[in-house]
C-alpha cells in the first residue's frame, strides 16, 4: 500500500502541470498560434514561487491560510483516487462521497478567499462558482450513484474492480448515460469551456480565475497547482468508474490469508502507462473543447447543467429496468 | 253539563279567540282577547275542579284568572298608554297570509294530536288541539309582530297554550308549581313593562325595528 502511495503521489504531483501545459498547447495550435511550450506551467509555478506575495490590506489571515488548505485538500484527494491501480492509496478509509466532499471543501475555502480581498471580481467569481456548483452537485452525485448502486458499494476501488471484471459489458445503456452526465459535469468542475475559460483574465468572464485574482507569489503558485491537481482527480474518478480497464488489478492469485496482495511491480508499470495514456487523452479532449467552444452566457448554464442532471436521472431510471 | 262538556266548549271558544288574535291589528283589542282567553281557561278549570272535588284544580283556575286574566292586562294597558301608536302598522305577515296561517295552525294542531294519540284527561280530545293551536299562535305572534307589547301578548298566548296542555293532560301541575309558574309569568310581564317605559324614554319608540343594531 505504501509503495502505491508513494508511486501514485509522486507521479501525479510531478505530472499534473504537464497536462495543463499540453491542453493549453493543443488549444493554441488549433487556433493557428504557436502557443507556449508544454513545460510553461512549470516555469510559471517556479516564477510565482520565488516572487514576493502581495496581499490586500483589507484581507484577514484567511488569505495566508486558504492556499495551503486548498492545496492540501487536493493532494489528499489525489491520494484517495484510484488512478494507477484499482485500489486507491487510502482505499480503506474513503469513498466517492468523501472525495466529492473534499472537492466541496476546497471550493468553500476558495470562495471564502475570494471574499477576503474585498474586490468585486473575487465576489463575482465566488458567487458564480457557488451557483454553478449547486447545479453540478446533483448531476455529479447521481451519475456516480448509478455505478455505486450497480456495484453495491460507494468505494471507488470496489466500483472499478467490478468494472474491470465486467470488461466491455460495463458500458451498458445506464452507464453510458451516466458517463455522459459525468462528462458534462467534469467540464464544469475543472473549469473548461464552454462553462469557464481557464486561460482568460477578462474580469467579466472568468469564474475560477476570478477567485485567484488577488492571490500572488507562492499563494498563487499553490492555488494554480491545486487547480492542476483537481483536473487529475476529476479525470481519474471518471476513468476509475467508467473506464477502469488497464489499471493495475491486485494479483490474480489471492494471498494465503485470502487478502488480496499488492499488485505485482509489472502490473504497476502497466498501470502507470495506461493512466498516463488516459490522462493525455482526456487532456486532448478538454483542449479540443477549449479551442472549439466559446464560453456560454452564464444565464444559459442552467439548461446545460440541467441536461447533465436529466441524463443522470434517466440513467438512474434505466439502471432499475435494464441490467447495468 | 258534564266536566268534559264544559272543557269542550271552552276549547272551541279559545280556538276562535286565537284566530281573532292572529287577524287583529289593534294591540288594545289583542290584549282584551288574550285576557278573555285566560279567564275562559280559568273558568274551565274551576268548573272541572269543583265537579271532581279537587281543590287544587280550582285554585289553579283562580290563579289563572287572577294573574293572567287581570294583572297581566293591567301592565299591558299601561304600556299601551305610554306609546302614541296603538296599532300594528306593518306586521311581518300581511292580512291574507295571517288568515291562511291561522287556519293552517288549527289544521296542524288537529293532525298533531291525532298523530300522537295518547289519552289525557276526559274531554282531552277537544282541549289538546286547542292547546297546541294556542302554542303555535303564540309563536306566530312573537315571530310576526313589530311592537314590543304585541310580543308580550304573543308570550301570554304561548303561555296559555302550555297551561291548557297541562290542563288537558293532567289537569294541571301540582299546586306549588302552578303558583310558581303564574308568579314568574307576572314578573316577566312586569319586567316587560319596565323595559317598555325605558325603551320609550331612551329610544322614543316601542317598535322592535329600533332593536336591530347588535350584530355579528
Amino acid at each position, binding site marked *: 500500500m505504501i509503495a502505491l502511495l508513494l508511486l501514485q503521489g509522486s507521479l501525479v504531483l510531478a505530472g499534473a502541470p504537464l497536462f495543463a501545459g499540453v491542453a493549453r498547447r493543443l488549444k493554441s495550435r488549433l487556433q493557428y498560434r504557436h502557443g507556449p511550450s508544454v513545460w510553461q506551467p512549470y516555469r510559471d509555478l517556479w516564477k510565482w514561487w520565488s516572487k514576493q506575495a502581495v496581499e490586500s490590506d483589507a484581507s484577514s489571515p484567511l488569505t495566508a491560510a486558504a492556499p495551503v488548505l486548498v492545496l*492540501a485538500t487536493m493532494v489528499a484527494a489525489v491520494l484517495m483516487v484510484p488512478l494507477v491501480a484499482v485500489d486507491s492509496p487510502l482505499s480503506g478509509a474513503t469513498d466517492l462521497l468523501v472525495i466529492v466532499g*473534499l472537492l466541496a471543501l476546497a471550493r468553500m475555502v476558495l470562495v471564502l478567499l475570494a471574499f477576503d480581498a474585498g474586490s468585486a471580481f473575487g465576489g463575482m467569481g465566488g458567487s458564480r462558482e457557488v451557483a454553478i*456548483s449547486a447545479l453540478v452537485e446533483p448531476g455529479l452525485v447521481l451519475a456516480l450513484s448509478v455505478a*455505486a448502486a450497480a456495484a453495491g458499494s460507494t468505494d471507488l476501488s470496489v466500483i472499478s474492480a467490478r468494472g474491470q471484471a465486467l470488461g466491455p459489458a460495463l458500458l451498458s445503456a445506464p452507464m453510458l448515460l451516466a458517463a455522459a452526465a459525468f462528462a458534462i459535469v467534469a467540464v464544469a468542475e475543472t473549469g473548461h469551456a464552454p462553462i469557464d475559460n481557464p486561460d482568460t483574465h477578462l474580469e467579466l468572464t472568468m469564474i475560477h480565475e476570478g477567485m485567484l485574482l488577488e492571490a500572488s507569489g507562492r499563494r498563487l503558485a499553490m492555488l494554480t497547482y491545486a487547480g492542476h491537481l483537481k483536473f487529475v482527480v476529476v479525470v481519474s474518478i471518471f476513468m476509475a468508474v467508467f473506464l477502469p480497464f488497464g489499471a493495475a488489478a491486485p494479483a490474480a492469485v489471492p494471498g494465503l490469508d485470502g487478502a488480496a496482495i499488492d499488485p505485482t511491480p509489472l502490473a504497476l508499470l502497466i498501470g502507470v502507462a495506461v493512466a498516463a495514456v488516459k490522462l493525455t487523452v482526456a487532456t486532448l479532449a478538454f483542449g479540443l473543447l477549449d479551442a472549439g467552444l466559446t464560453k456560454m452566457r452564464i444565464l444559459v448554464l442552467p439548461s446545460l447543467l440541467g441536461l447533465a442532471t436529466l441524463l443522470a436521472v434517466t440513467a438512474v431510471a434505466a439502471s432499475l429496468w435494464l441490467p447495468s | 253539563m258534564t266536566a268534559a262538556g264544559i272543557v269542550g266548549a271552552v276549547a272551541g271558544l279559545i280556538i276562535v279567540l286565537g284566530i281573532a288574535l292572529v287577524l287583529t291589528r289593534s294591540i288594545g283589542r289583542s290584549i282584551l282577547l288574550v285576557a278573555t282567553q285566560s279567564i275562559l281557561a280559568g273558568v274551565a278549570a274551576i268548573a272541572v275542579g269543583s265537579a271532581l272535588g279537587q281543590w287544587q284544580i280550582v285554585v289553579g283556575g283562580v290563579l289563572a284568572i287572577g294573574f293572567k286574566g287581570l294583572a297581566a292586562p293591567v301592565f299591558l294597558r299601561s304600556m299601551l298608554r305610554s306609546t302614541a301608536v296603538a296599532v300594528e302598522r306593518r306586521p311581518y305577515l300581511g292580512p291574507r297570509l295571517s288568515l291562511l296561517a291561522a287556519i293552517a295552525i288549527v289544521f296542524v294542531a288537529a293532525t298533531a294530536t291525532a298523530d300522537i294519540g295518547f289519552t289525557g284527561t276526559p274531554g282531552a280530545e277537544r282541549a289538546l288541539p286547542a292547546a297546541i293551536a294556542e302554542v303555535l299562535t303564540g309563536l306566530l305572534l312573537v315571530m310576526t309582530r313589530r311592537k314590543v307589547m304585541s310580543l308580550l301578548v304573543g308570550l301570554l298566548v304561548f303561555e296559555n297554550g302550555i297551561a291548557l296542555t297541562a290542563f288537558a293532560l293532567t289537569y294541571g301541575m301540582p299546586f306549588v308549581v302552578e303558583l310558581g309558574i303564574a308568579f314568574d309569568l307576572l314578573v316577566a310581564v312586569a319586567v316587560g313593562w319596565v323595559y317598555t317605559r325605558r325603551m320609550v324614554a331612551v329610544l322614543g319608540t316601542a317598535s322592535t325595528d329600533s332593536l*336591530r343594531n347588535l350584530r355579528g
Partner: protein
Amino acid sequence: MNGPGMDVSLTIALGFLALSAAVSLLGPRAGKTALALAALGSVALAVVGGLAAFKEPVALHFGTILGSLSVDLRYDALAAPFLIALGVVGTAASIYAMGHHDGMRSRLDGVAYPAFLASLGLLFGADTAFAFLLAWEAMALSSAALVFGPRPGPTTVRAGYVYLALTHLAAACLVAAFALLGGAAGHADFAAMREAAQALDPAARDVVFLLLLVGFATKAGIVPLHIWLPRAHPEAPSHVSALMSGVMVKAGIFGVLRVVIGILGPGPAWWALAVIVLGAGSAVLGALYALVERDLKRLLAFSTIENVGIIFLGLGVGLLGATVNAPALTTLGLAAALVHTLNHAAFKGLLFLAAGSIQSATGTRDLDKLGGLVRAMPWTALLFGVGAVALAGVPPFSGFAGEWLIFQSLLTAGAATAVDPVIRIACLLAVGALALSVGLALGAIVKASGSAFLALPRSPRAGAALEVGRLERAAAALLALVTLGAGLFAGPIRALAGTIVEASSRPTGTTLGGSAPVLLGSYEPIVVASVLAFIVVAAWAIGRWRAAPVRRAPTWACGIAPTAAHEYTATSFDKPARLFFEPILRPVRARRVEFEPGTPFPHRVTYRSNVDHLVESRLYVPLHRASIAFAQVARRLQQGTLQLYVAYTVVALVILLVAARP
C-alpha cells in the same frame, strides 16, 4: 444500581430547573444565578440521557390527573440521544445567556426558560399519551412566551402568534391521533397502545399516520408546514433560538421515532414514500431559501428546515425498512437520522449563538450591513467558522458525517431489490435532491460567513463592533468542541446510534433493527483528518521555507481607492442563484436611480430585490383570506332581528321533533 440512578438524576434536574424559575422571580438582578441553575439542570438532564442510554429503562409514575389520564415517564434508549442533545445545547445556551445582555429580559423569561427545558426533558420520557401531549403543549407555550418576550414589536407579535396558532392546530391533530390510537387501549401507557395499534384496521392506521405526520412535521418545520420557523426563530433571543433550532425542532423527529415507528409500527409503502418526498422537498426548498436570505438568523432558520428535511429522508428509509421487513435497512436509516439530528443540534446551536454575538455586537442581522467582523471579533469568527464548515457538509466535519450516512441509507434503499421500483427510484432521486441541497447549503453558509466576517465593514456599526464577553465565547466554544468531536469520532457515534435504534426496538417485540448499521462504503474521518492535517503542515512548512515577507497594499480597484462599496454584498452574492432558480423563487427587483439634478450622472442608486415565498403566497395567504371571508359571511347569521331569532328556535325545534320520531 441501574434503576434508581436515573430517577434520582431526573429529580435533581427538575429540582434545578424549578429552583431556577423560583430564583428568577426574585427580580432581574437574580437573572445570572437563575441561568446558572438552568445550566446545572441541563447538565443533569444530559446525565439522565447518559444513564438512559446504557441502563435498563425505569418507569416513573408522577400521578393520575383525571380518571385514566396519568403522567408516567420512562427514559429508554431512544430518549437518550435527544436528552444528551438537550443537555449539551441547554447548558451552552444557559451559559451564553448568563453573559448576554438580553439573557434574562423579564420575570416571564425567567419562568418560561426553565419551563421550556423541563417540558422538553419530560417529552422525551413521556410514556402515556397524556404525558406526551402535556409536555408537547407546555413546550409550545413556554417557547412562545420566550419568542414574545416582555416588549414585543408588531413583527414579533405576528411571528409569535403564527407560531402558537400553527403549533396548537398541529397539537389538535396529535390529540385526535392519540385518541384513535388509544381508543381500545383505554389510554394506558405506550406499551398497551402498541398492541392496540396493531389491531387497528388499515384505514384507521392510515388516518392515524397522516394525523401524526401533520402534527410532527409542523413541529419539525417540514415544508409546507414550515412557515412559523423562519418567523419565530429570529424573534427569539439567540440562546432560545439555539435551543429551538437545536432541540425543539427535533421533538418532531423524536415524535416520528417514538410514535409512528415505535407505536404505530410498519405500514404500507406509501408512508415511507411520503416521508421521503417531504424530506427531499424540505431539504431543497430550505437550502434554496437559505441561499437567497439576507437576514442571518432567517438564513439559519431556513437551513434548519433543510437539515430537518435531510433527517426525514433517513426516517423515510427507516420506515421503508420496516415495511419490507429488512432490519438492516431500518437500523441504517434510523441511525443516520439520529446521527444527523445530534450533529445538527450541536452545530446549529453553535451558529445561532455566534449569530447572537454578531447581533449584540453590531445591532443588526442584515448581512448587507455587516462585513469585516473578523478583525474585531476573531473568536466569534473562528467559532462561526467551525459551525459553518459543519453546516456546509464537508469532510471531515460533523455535518458531512450525518449527510454521508443519509446518502448511504438512500443508496442502500435504492439498491435493495426487495423494495418496489417506484420507491427505489424515489430514493435515488432523493440522493440527487440531497446533493443539490448540500450544494445550496454550502453556498448559503459561505455567503453568510463571507459577507459577515470578511473584507471591509459595510456599516459604521459593523466597523465599530467589539468582541463579545468571555461567557458567550465559552458557551459557543463548548458547542464547537462537541461539533469537532462529533465530526472526528463519526465512526464510533455511528455504531452507537445503531445499537440505540436496535435497543429501543427490542421491547416492542418487532425486530426493528439488526446490529450496527451495515454500510455500502467506508469513511474513516480520523484517517481523512490526519492525512489532511499532515499535508497542511507540510505545505505550510514548504510555503514558509525562505519566503520573502508579505507586503500589504490596498486592493487594486481599477485605479480608484477601494471602499466597502466595491465589495460583493450578500444580495449580490446570491444573484446568480436567484436567476438560476427563477421559476421557484420568482425574484422581484426594484431599482431606483437618483440623478444629480440636471446632469446624467446618478447621485444615488437604491436596489431592492426580494423573493416570493411560494408556499406562503400561494397556500397560506389565500387560505387565511378565505377563512376571514367565510367568517364575515357566517356572521350574518346574527344580524339583529329578534323575530328571526325566534324563527331559528322554532325551525330547530321542528327539525329535532322530526329527527326524534321513533
